């Protein structure tokens, strides 16, 4: 049983990232979508949290949301994999279920 945790809000706007990381079991996956993709960048105030998350979970970010927001892929934290919507669907099938942290 391994859940895909989906976060959609910026870590600077809401505590969804914090709460998710507090409650996501080791081995579960985290997918950043919509405004949450800002958490994927290096050199932010939450970069340490994401660095730690990358060790405990597989972390993904939705590429169309990065592109929409002008976030350069070279600024993304190492270890985060980018997926498109097909990849998003694929992840939802690979994990036992999903939890949306709104």
């Amino acid at each position: 049983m391994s859940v895909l945790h989906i976060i959609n809000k910026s870590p600077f706007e809401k505590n969804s990232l914090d709460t998710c990381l507090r409650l996501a079991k080791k081995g579960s996956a985290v997918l950043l979508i919509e405004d949450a993709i800002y958490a994927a960048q290096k050199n932010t105030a939450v970069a340490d949290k994401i660095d730690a998350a990358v060790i405990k979970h597989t972390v993904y970010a939705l590429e169309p949301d990065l592109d929409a927001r002008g976030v350069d892929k070279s600024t993304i934290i190492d270890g985060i994999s980018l997926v498109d919507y097909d990849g998003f669907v694929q992840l939802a099938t690979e994990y036992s279920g999903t939890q949306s942290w709104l």
Partner: protein
Amino acid sequence: MSVIKKFLYVNRRAPHGSIYALESLEVVLIGAAFDQDVALAFIDDGVYQLMLNQDTSGIATKNFSSTYKALGDYDVNKIYVEKESLEMRGLSKENLLPLTYEDEDDDWAEKDSIQIVTSAELSDIIDNQDLIFSF
């Protein structure tokens, strides 16, 4: 044989400042008729939904806090409240509605529906669900 799935309703928002708390509860009540294995989790500001003594007369909105007390009658009696969320807000179980249910397997003894759980315990609970609703 009909399917029984584990449904978890995750509540992370305070009541009254938005409709999410009320409309989440409405899903739980309708869902109760489907005989699934239902649990509720109150995390972050969601713990405020269960506070005692809510009086909405001054803001003229629906006071639905008493509806939580009916959950036991709908066989919804697994109500998990995250300890860390309570502590962050200076709250304890004493600040919360005394939600109970009657255990038919124990001579209808009245028991607490609310379980205060740690993050680690809640993490395990989340990992064991079939389906998780968030509002």
